[in-house]
């Protein structure tokens, strides 16, 4: 497990969802390395990547009040500054809230997370 880089943790909103790569690799088997790579990514805005002092492909640590996850950072210019996106799967699910507010549905989207670089 990587450690958090010293420096400010930035508060963001995490959303998870389907990506083409996640779906493709799911078919080749969820036990495969390519599936783990496809779901082990976190997409961030170019501004946020810059503020974190990271380059694409470097590790980010994300913490929510439900858990901690590590993922590799990639840029999605379509994301708002403080929103991060993780493909649905075991990594995103480490951060997801399990309170269902009487509906059965946990918070797969809209989870508050603190993000920082990993070393």
């Amino acid at each position, binding site marked *: 497990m990587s450690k958090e880089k010293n420096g400010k943790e930035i508060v963001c*909103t995490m*959303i998870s*969802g*389907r*990506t*083409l790569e996640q*779906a*493709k690799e*799911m*078919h*080749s*088997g*969820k*036990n495969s390395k390519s599936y783990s790579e496809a779901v082990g990514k976190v997409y961030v805005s170019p501004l946020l990547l810059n503020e974190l002092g990271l380059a694409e492909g470097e590790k980010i640590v994300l913490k929510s009040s*439900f*858990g901690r996850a590590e993922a590799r950072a990639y840029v*999605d*210019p*379509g*994301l*708002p500054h403080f*929103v991060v*996106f993780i493909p*649905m*799967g*075991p990594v995103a*699910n*480490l951060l*997801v*809230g*399990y309170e*269902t*507010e*009487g*509906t*059965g*549905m*946990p*918070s*797969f*989207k*809209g989870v508050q997370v603190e993000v920082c670089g990993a070393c």
Partner: protein
Amino acid sequence: MLTKAKDVVCTFCGCLCDDIILTLDENRIVRVERACANGMGLFKNYNPDLLSPKIRGKEASWEKAIKEASEILSSAKYPLIYGLSSTSSEAQRVSVKLAEALGASIDSTSSVCHGPTGLAMQFVGEPTCTLGEIKNRADLLIFWGCNPIVSHSRHFARYSVMPKGRFVQDGRKGRKMVVIDVRLTQTARVADVFLQVKPGGDFELLVALKALVKGKSLDAVEAGGISTKVLQELVTDMKACRYGMIFFGMGLTMTKGRDLNVRELFSLVKELNDHTKFSALPMRGHGNVTGADQVMSWLCGYPFAVNFSKGYPRYGPGEFSVVDLLCNKETDALLVLASDPVAHLPSKAVDHIMEIPTIVIDPAESLSAKKATVYFPTAMYGVDCEGTAYRMDGVPLRLKAPMKGNRPSDEEVLEAILEGVRRC
């Protein structure tokens, strides 16, 4: 010898495209035509070679595995049957029978996709229509919190944005496309109008739209991060169209507000029907998740999160739903039918799955199957066994079996377990 199977239904997503062509070499799919990348993946990676069930990771006979599974379920104090959305409605029906025999809880993946939509339907009603109506009539298409280019890749071409319809003869040119989302998704990039709602701002946006449709003016300059002026323009388009349609996804059901977001969306659509024809449809993910809701509703009266411990069905989203039952550590045995909760549920729920005996029925050895106490490799509906599946608009389609099956269907395995449970 190569053979061709035409008009095969792809069961990966709720579009259930029924025009797929497969080329088969004996019991192998060697070519897939017309499917999108997701459908290609489903067919091309289909592996019918796993023939033996496993007990704790070791191959076992079918008889032994059925006996073990029946004993686990019969001796459990609080069994749960979960999944249902990637199998035939015939298998779904038997899973409800099994839940009743066991006094178990039964829940489908609906509870972690459009369960909140089901709750909203129960309050407001369902302003629904078929995909055929949309293709032939809709001139305003709004995609809210969904990204069909990625999740339902042929939706645009077959049902919504692109086709030339009877009353929309210009196809794409005859339809206005609006996307409302937090992210500038692939779908948003091809829209005529993109409204970027702020995270968690959907409910506010829906309330504001409803007020404007009712002719009220807003004091606020924006709602949900979108200026009132832009919202007024959208409302003008909504009232002026001949047939408006909102497709919505988990951007509404998985965020703050959940069922309340969808309730507000349905009541907006209801309001719009005072001005023109408007409908809404959830973008259903798994191939037969709509069927799971239908079958559960016929048999139990409720679409998901049902408990049979008192001998009759009780409805309890938030109580009898999979995430709640697992995170509260109430369930002591789990039967997974054609789903992969280890990959897709929150980690706290997965932690509990790791602690209890599980039975997994699935054509592929998923992450859940790898961990299962008993795993049954089964035929896949629409590939090597027949069945029925419901498209996202509630239209049932008959699935052929283009390939000869060497494995039993989910339905047959469930029937055998039910027999075993009755004998225990």
